[in-house]
């Protein structure tokens, strides 16, 4: 298949699935449609990766762009979409939810469509709209359970993110304005047009524009102090949605930040942009560390861990250089796999213990042996312990940081990652090995009802195995791929 056919598949499959789900009244068929779309997207993305490697292509009148960076983000989105679709088959078998299943899957597939569209957008204005659409669609997924807490989370999500993303729009208009002094009043503001005109832009205006887009898309990425919507939205939505939000959505906004950092580099703004990026990344780690250690809700714990990992990725991009970019991108894929695994585990535990509070979960291994073990391995992985993928990427990012102008942040990162390691695993220690007098009683109550569907455990395996493989073996193909992305982001001299 040609690259344009692959792109059509990637965008068309979820869109068709969403329409199909709207038309069908049967939950089963909607489930099947969505799963088929996720599978098609995954296969098409895998096939697209080597093609994207050979250089940026544009399609459809220049509105679609396929480049190595975009294809990489697509891969992380497609992986999470597939895993979450699989998990939702088991998770949504709750009695009484059947009539609303087609609606859920229509939104789910539409959400996947908007996320897959974002990284493919060549025009910056259209990219902004794609990101805005992800918010609008996912708000209804967050509020899907329609109880007080989830509606509150949905409202907070849409207000905070809309306000944040409008700052990004202002920044984009400033970029357009700055470029219009050079390119005349009417032109298409594509990534490549902005990059090529960047050296001639007015530095003051460009710096302001960069800061606005960074804060704007940073809100969507969930960087502190704009992260306030994230723990609510991630914890109150249904679990497959939490995985999609955390593992996929945040990356689609991160790609915008990566591309604007590149513009700032070319525009010769000095050290300020990168220092701001690094400082915000470090602050995100700090805030995450505080909230992780004192957390009581299991899904909120995972959500703050997302703030942490977005901070780590931002640090990687902020440090820059081929190593920093490779580390950040490797981290992106590993985090997508690992965070899906963690949310699936949290969803299973919530199902078994009928609670979302960490304090109500005891003797996890006895109640859900297989899923519990996978979850524990995932917890080790997500805190950056070897031999998992996140360890490799974090070490790579630190190496990049030591060579950069902001080496101080490496030490902050080291300390905070250790705090998070201890704080995060302490919760798991209590849940797995802690002793509690009345836990035995409660365990007896739960015994027998702890039947987890195979669909709830299988995606955990599918997430953990590649995570382990990527931890012990950094494929050579990835290195050449990241080198191509670095060339794209840093210019010809890496």
């Amino acid at each position, binding site marked *: 298949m040609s690259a344009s056919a692959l792109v059509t598949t990637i965008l068309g499959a979820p869109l068709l699935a969403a329409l199909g789900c709207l038309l069908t009244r049967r939950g089963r068929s909607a489930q099947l449609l969505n799963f088929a779309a996720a599978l098609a997207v995954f296969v098409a993305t895998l096939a697209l990766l080597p093609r994207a490697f050979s250089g940026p292509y544009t399609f459809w009148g220049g509105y679609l762009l396929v480049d190595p960076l975009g294809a990489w983000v697509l891969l992380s989105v497609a992986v999470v979409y597939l895993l979450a679709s699989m998990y939702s088959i088991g998770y949504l078998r709750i009695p009484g939810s059947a009539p609303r299943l087609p609606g859920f899957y229509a939104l789910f597939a539409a959400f996947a469509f908007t996320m897959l569209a974002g990284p493919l957008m060549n*025009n910056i*204005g*259209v990219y902004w*709209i794609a990101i*805005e*659409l992800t918010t*609008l669609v996912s*708000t*209804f997924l967050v*509020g899907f359970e*329609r*109880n*007080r*807490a989830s*509606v*509150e*989370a*949905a*409202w*907070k999500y*849409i*207000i905070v993110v*809309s*306000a944040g993303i*409008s*700052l990004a*729009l*202002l920044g984009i*208009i400033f970029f*357009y*304005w700055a470029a*219009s*002094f050079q390119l*005349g*009043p*009417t*032109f*298409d503001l594509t990534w490549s047009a902005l990059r090529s005109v960047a050296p001639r832009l*007015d*530095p*003051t*205006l460009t710096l*302001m524009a960069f800061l606005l887009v960074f804060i704007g898309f940073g809100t969507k990425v969930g960087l502190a102090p704009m992260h306030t919507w994230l*723990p*609510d939205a991630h*914890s*109150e939505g249904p679990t497959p949605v939490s995985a999609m939000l955390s593992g996929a959505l945040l990356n689609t906004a991160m790609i915008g930040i990566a591309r604007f950092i590149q513009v700032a580099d070319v525009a010769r703004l000095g050290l300020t942009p990168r220092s701001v990026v690094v400082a915000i990344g470090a602050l995100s780690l700090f805030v995450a560390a505080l*909230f992780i250690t*004192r*957390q*009581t809700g299991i899904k*909120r714990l995972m959500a703050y861990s997302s703030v942490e990992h977005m901070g780590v990725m931002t640090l990687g991009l902020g440090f820059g250089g081929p190593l920093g970019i490779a580390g950040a991108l490797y981290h992106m894929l590993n985090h997508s796999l690992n965070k899906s695994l963690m949310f699936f585990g949290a969803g299973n535990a919530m199902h078994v213990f009928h609670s979302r509070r960490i304090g109500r979960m005891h003797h996890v291994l006895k109640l859900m042996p297989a899923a519990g073990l996978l979850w524990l391995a995932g917890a080790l992985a997500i805190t950056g312990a070897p031999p998992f993928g996140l360890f490799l990427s974090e070490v790579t990012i630190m190496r990049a940081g030591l060579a950069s102008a902001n080496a101080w942040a490496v030490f902050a990162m080291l300390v905070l990652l250790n705090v998070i390691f201890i704080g995060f695993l302490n919760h798991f220690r209590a849940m797995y090995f802690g002793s509690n007098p009345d836990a035995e009683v409660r365990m007896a109550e739960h015994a027998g009802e702890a039947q987890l569907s195979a669909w709830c455990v299988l995606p955990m395996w599918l997430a953990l195995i590649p995570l382990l493989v990527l931890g012990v073996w950094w494929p050579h193909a990835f290195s050449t791929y990241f080198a191509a992305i670095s060339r794209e982001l840093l210019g010809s001299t890496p």
Partner: protein
Amino acid sequence: MLATHLNPLAASLFSLLAIASLLLAFVLLGSRWLQDYLIAFAVESWLIGALSAAVGFYGHFPELYIVAALTVLFRGLVLPYMLLRIIRRLEVQREIHERLAPASSLVVGALLVVFAFVVSTHLGDSLHLVGSVAVLALTVMLSMKLIGLLMLIVRSEVISQILGLLVLENGIFLGSQILVPGMPLLIELVILFDLLVVVACFGVLVRYLVVHAGTSSTLNLRRLAG
């Protein structure tokens, strides 16, 4: 760019429209009544539509006439109508527990305008545009942006929050008409359309809030923290 070589009549017309829009943002800030918000917002949108048409006329951008017509239609008529329907359903007439009284909000708003002016002048200096209508447009754009954010902070009725977002959108739109009048038509149309979808989504969410959370004030939404 357009703003640097305008005839004086056009420059003063643009300034008049921009400043009138800013004043209407203050009307929003200074009132407690939801109906007032709606009228002020609608009039503001009409002014921005007129501004688009004026920029199109003096700058020779014929496609801006389409933008102007759609702005008046969507922002000036459809959006206020959609909001009116939400308000009717809510049975809430006014803001009751604002975090900052309207009078104090006006003072803070004025300070924000001063801040926006300082930033704009600084940018104007760097671009050698001091004294042109571009600096004024920039000031109004940033002021409306900040006033919108202020409304989000100090008002708690859901309608006020939606209007806060719309005011800051209006600010961006107003500024972009003067600063980048040549922006491709497609982008402007999509952004206009996007706004309709946003407000439709808000409408549905407000209904959920009233049904499932039993409130239309965000002061009562404080369950999720930490």
